[in-house]
């Protein structure tokens, strides 16, 4: 039985703050809370446009006090990993004194018994502030510590947000058999019950004939094949990039298959001698050292399975024989 697979999906976003949110987040970093005045009404959080009419606004920013009144609340019994506390807490709509509309934020109390609509609360600034909405939270009025205003820093012009989501699930049945095959030193493909075409890795269906393919379609392919396409990637640096030197990603059509393995890492082979039609033999990591760590239901990397691909020395395959393959 193979273990559940975990996937981490991350997107690092950076967003500019602009003429209204920039001063707001700069002020938060300094230990001050700003709103925006629109036709005599004060909105906090501030907005760049009139919420009633959509008209864009000149930034007429005003400083808010520390206190407000709870207009609604909910007690969060099991915080998510994104929440500002790892213990139960409240989210609340808080109408800051002088504001026209409430702001939604976290409210820390020891027990839900302390919560009520209408209760008075205060802004509690954190000691470490970076110019983000998480630089403060609310506490019952009179229980916080005094704010320390620190001015003179650079304006906050960019907000960074790392989106990070985790997924955990069993390998799906077709994937389970493919992965077990790799541990056993075999490439398992799937044959379409309609067209007879063999794809690897199987998807659990034939996307051309729109038919599901079960275990009865499994078959073992050779562990040698021909290069049908490749690209040389010169890495640029970005969040999560591990590469520094140019490397090849190749498509390899295993003998007996009708779709190539794509994105295969063939580093170790000289880039200037690499070519379409080249015949390659898989060299497996020894049984017991094979690692399924980069194989889940979403993507496949053979890096932990295949140590390298060796040229077989056979004559090259005829590139014209690959004309029906796009990759």
């Amino acid at each position, binding site marked *: 039985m193979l273990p559940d697979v975990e996937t981490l999906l991350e997107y690092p976003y950076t967003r500019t703050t602009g003429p209204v949110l920039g001063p707001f987040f700069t002020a938060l970093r300094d230990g001050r809370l700003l709103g925006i005045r629109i036709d005599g009404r004060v909105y906090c959080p501030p907005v760049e446009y009139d919420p009633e009419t959509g008209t864009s606004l000149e930034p007429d920013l005003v400083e808010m006090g520390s206190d407000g009144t709870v207009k*609604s609340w909910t*007690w*969060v*019994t*099991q915080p998510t990993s994104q929440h500002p506390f790892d213990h139960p807490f409240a*989210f609340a709509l808080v109408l800051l004194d002088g504001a026209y509309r409430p*702001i*939604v934020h976290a409210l820390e109390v020891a027990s839900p018994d302390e919560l009520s609509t209408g209760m008075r609360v205060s802004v509690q600034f954190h000691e470490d502030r970076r110019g983000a909405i998480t630089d403060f939270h609310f506490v019952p009025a009179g229980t916080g510590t005094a704010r320390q205003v620190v001015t003179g820093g650079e304006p906050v012009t960019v907000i960074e947000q790392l989106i990070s989501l*985790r997924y955990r*699930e069993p390998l799906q049945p077709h994937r389970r058999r493919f992965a077990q095959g790799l541990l056993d030193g075999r490439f398992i493909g799937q044959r379409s019950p309609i067209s007879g075409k063999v794809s690897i890795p199987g998807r659990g269906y034939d996307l051309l004939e729109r038919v599901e393919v079960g275990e009865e379609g499994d078959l073992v392919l050779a562990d040698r094949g021909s290069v049908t396409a490749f690209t040389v990637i010169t890495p640029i640096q970005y969040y999560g990039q591990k590469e520094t030197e140019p490397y090849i990603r190749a498509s390899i059509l295993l003998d007996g298959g009708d779709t190539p393995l794509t994105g295969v890492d063939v580093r170790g082979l000289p880039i200037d001698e690499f070519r379409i039609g080249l015949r390659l033999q898989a060299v497996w990591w020894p049984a017991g050292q094979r690692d399924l760590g980069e194989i889940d239901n979403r993507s496949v990397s053979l890096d932990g399975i295949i140590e390298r691909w060796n040229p077989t020395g056979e004559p090259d395959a005829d590139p014209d024989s690959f004309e029906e393959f796009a990759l």
Partner: protein
Amino acid sequence: MNGDTTRSTGRDVAIVTVSQTPSVAAFDGPEPVLVMRCVNDILNQTGLERSEVDFTIAGSCDYNSGLPFAFVMNLDGIGAWPPVYESHVEMDGAWALFEAWLRLQVGDVDTALVIGSGRPSPGNHREAFALQTDPYFMAPLGLDPTSLAGLQARALLDRELATERDFAEVVVRSRQAGASNPKAMVTEQASVEELMAQPYVASPLRAHDVAPTADGAAAVLLVAGDRARELRERPAWIRGIDHRIESHHPGFRDLTDSPSIRTAAAHAGAADGPIDVAELMVVHSHEELIVRRSLGLGEQTVVNPSGGPLAGDPVMATGLVRVAEVASRIMDGTVRRGVAHASSGACLQQNLVSVLEGDD
């Protein structure tokens, strides 16, 4: 903008076939298979070849699926050959229906296949959907749909527009209706008293007040004009469809009311005739009270006979399922006229109202 644009159109468009997978807690296979089952079912029911479908559009969510460009992978379920003329919305399939309806108004194509699919089981729904909130003020706090729904439910209690018993009664009714729906996920019944004895998850909401997320898919086939009657004796005509949005700041809204539903319903013509059935996208029990009131539904309207999302919430297909449930009741002659509601965003921020009718 002319408020009547969404119903005073030249082209009649109808739903002629619908399909749904069952809603299940965890589907042991790829999301494209869920799509494929619905697509094949639609084609089998109508006898159409895939090449006879002019336009396809799907609604799904990559954060839900856990894969960049998961929506492209879902096209596998529609079939890679012949090439499709297609579109996608990162929204519930109900919004794909809206785009398909608009696309058919252009007049150069006559058939559109609409799909909604989701496989949330491997992920964390609250964390994924916290990301649809404002990225400056809300998402960094992890403000998730359930917590925000708790704020909305509390506002109803504070204004004495509802009680916690009302919330539980919505759940009891939804589960009773879901018991006779073979596609529903929750069939277990409980009394109001039993439900109210349960602990809160985001007070005043309890676990059963939150629709249980499910893996699943749905599809409908839209056909314009007389061709619809060739494919179905009694098509479900889309008489009006309208989408309205409120502020993404929950504090800037009156959470006890839904002006966007009222506006959408007015522009879709919901009140132009009796509403026999209404399928409402109630993903938190208290929302049913707001949606009913905002749509002006009376005693003559049967609400969520399928059980609604509280009996199983196939994320990103749920709204389209509402349309399919109304359409199937019109097509089989059970009812003449119905309303399907879909929502998106926190606390019913966005709402889509469709009005469907059968021939007299």
